[in-house]
């Protein structure tokens, strides 16, 4: 906006590649900005001019409905010109590498590129090859920082704080970028983080992240304030990591009975899209303790905050 507005907390980063590397102050600044963006999104007139004249490219090497539309809406509400590019794996196989794609897009002079890629580190690689700001919208099993920010915003608005809460992250931690970003963020803000799942779905060295590790869901949920479920990919359900959907749901699916082990006012979250009857029972997903729909609303707000924070650091920002 203009120089006459009140000074805001600064966000001293050119890109948002991960939660790793952000200070608690950086995170809090983004969450505070996101709180304001929630109010903007709840008005009839949702349009702002913060990003007017700016070009935002959503570059998705992996299909995504909700994250891509959330970034698109966030950009449009701030007045940016938003272009969506879905790069299917087939066109990558035609020979154009990630770096070629980056160079091509860079030549179109975008201001912000939002990237999702199936390989860990791919967004870092791309960020080194372009002149604009880059937002990581998920890279392999590495990080998904805006998801962790939206989860934190949702928790903070419902519990009034993050510090001191017990958060149980349950399910396929091994393949989950959401889990990694959440572990780092929640610990930075003082939460006690637990990871719960079968050992085949827990990454090696997890205890050295400073989390408590549980392979028994009931113990892992005991006294939890927040139960955060993770999605289990279909190809991992039948024998490779867990024997069957039936067995997984029986021992690690969140149903009313298991949720009863958590605090009575515990809240349930899921990054979506949900596999009902696999990692979560419909009764819980749609129940009074569920924050799952609110998470989607917070997603747009957090992405607006991120875009705005990075846009301020752009040349002539």
């Amino acid at each position, binding site marked *: 906006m203009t120089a006459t507005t009140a000074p805001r907390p600064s966000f001293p980063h050119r890109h948002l590649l991960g939660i790793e590397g952000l200070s608690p102050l950086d995170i809090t600044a983004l969450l505070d900005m996101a709180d304001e963006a929630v109010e903007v999104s709840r008005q009839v007139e949702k349009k702002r001019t913060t990003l007017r004249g700016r070009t935002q490219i959503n570059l998705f090497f992996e299909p995504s409905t909700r994250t891509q539309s959330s970034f698109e809406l966030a950009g449009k509400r701030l007045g940016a010109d938003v272009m969506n590019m879905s790069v299917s794996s087939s066109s990558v196989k035609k020979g154009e590498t*990630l770096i070629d794609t980056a160079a091509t897009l860079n030549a179109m002079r975008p201001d912000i590129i939002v990237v999702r890629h199936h390989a860990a580190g791919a967004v870092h690689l791309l960020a080194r090859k372009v002149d604009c700001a880059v937002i990581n919208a998920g890279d*392999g*099993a590495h990080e998904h920082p805006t998801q962790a920010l939206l989860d934190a915003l949702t928790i903070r608005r419902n519990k009034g704080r993050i510090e001191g809460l017990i958060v149980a992250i349950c399910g396929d931690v091994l393949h989950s970028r959401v889990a990694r970003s959440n572990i780092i963020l929640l610990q930075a803000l003082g939460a006690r983080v637990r990871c719960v799942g079968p050992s085949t779905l827990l*990454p090696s*060295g997890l205890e050295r*992240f400073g989390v408590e590790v549980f392979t028994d869901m009931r113990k892992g949920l005991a006294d939890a304030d927040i139960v955060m479920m993770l999605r289990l990919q279909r190809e991992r359900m039948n024998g490779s990591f867990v024997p069957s959907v039936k067995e997984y749901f029986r021992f690690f699916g969140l149903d009313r009975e298991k949720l009863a082990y958590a605090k009575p006012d515990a809240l349930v979250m899921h990054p979506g899209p949900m596999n009902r009857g696999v990692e979560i029972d419909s009764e819980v997903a749609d129940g009074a303790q569920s924050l799952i729909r609110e998470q989607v609303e917070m997603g747009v707000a957090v992405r607006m905050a991120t875009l705005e924070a990075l846009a301020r650091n752009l040349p002539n920002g």
Partner: protein
Amino acid sequence: MKTPTTQARALVFTNARLVDPASGREAAGALLVEDGVIADIGWDEPGRAGPAGAEVVDCGGRVLAPGLVDMRAFVGEPGAEHRETLKTASEAAAAGGVTTVVCMPDTDPVVDEPSIVDFLLRRARDTAVVNIHPAAALTKGLEGREMTEFGLLMEAGAVAFTDGARSVTNAQVMRRALTYARDFGALILHHTEDPDLVGSGVMNEGELASRLGLPGVPREAEIIMLERDLRLVQLTGARYHAAMVSCATSIALIERAKAEGLPVTCGVSINNLTLNESDIGDYRTFLKLSPPLRSEEDRLAVVDALARGVIDVVVSDHNPQDVETKRLPFAEAADGAVGLETMLSAGLRLVHAGHIGLARLLAAMASQPAALLGLPAGRLAAGAPADLILIDPDEPYVLDKAALHSRSKNSPFDEARLEGRVLQTFVAGRKVHDASPAS
């Protein structure tokens, strides 16, 4: 290039600090070369003059040692000349003080027939400036199913048998190959990594891989394959060399096998001696290797094993990769790093850090691999080939990958500070590399 005619003129190295890794002897001295071989050595006589008319190289007190023998280098010829040819690999080797290179059989076509060994030797004779000895495939097409013609391949000039970067997973195939190899006294080099346990893994399994979101390679992939092999060696009695060990448990296994008297030796990559998994940092693909860089504890264990002589050989594991196979997301990038030119400088880090003596390092890089391969090189002795290197072990420099002689520039030591470099390299008495100042 290399002229088949013998050196007409004698060559004398004076004022040298002679280091003979084969005997462990280290003293000031002079050395005389005639007809491409070491004719005489003047231990403790640095000023000893040669015959009249001999060319004199004043070493100025610097180290004169046998040229290095690298048991494991991938060269792209035939089939991947855009990555490396025998010519460029040999120039890189000469610059790094490596005077004998054993090239791996994973080429296209695979080195699994005598005619391809013959092709390589002729090609090397015509284009390479250092000695090239092919290792032939252990199984046809590197497919791990049928053994190759060990006898005929050895007659053609193959010095060892290996499936290169692949492991033979079928224990029955390995058993028969070892049994048959014993009759010919053939040396088997085996890359010990169970491919099923490696799975999609791309770096050492553990906290760091988990933080980077990369699938890990457990140490057990190496340990289990190595343990199986050692039992098969006990069964068959064949000469077996574990190509590259990378972790503490493997060291313990090798140590036990040696104590049991098994004909077992092992090597280590210069990378696993001098780098660890943390060096991968922000997804640096030049450090994506097989075996992967392990933890600092593992690195210290292999350094200690080298110092104690449990590890016999240090290899460059030279593996040239072009930009297109490395400028990719980490998990999608090819394995491997170039190493011929930096192996000695990197190894000297261990000497400067006080982990190991210079003679011990050179033994693992020259005399011991030569002995395993049955080559006369790697020692300072009358009658040995005049494959020599003049080294300044203390000269500091910063590696610039653009200055590498190798056709590929994927060095994990790019921009690294190194101490100690090769000034001159001689093969059969002929100078093939000269980096000494013009003065």
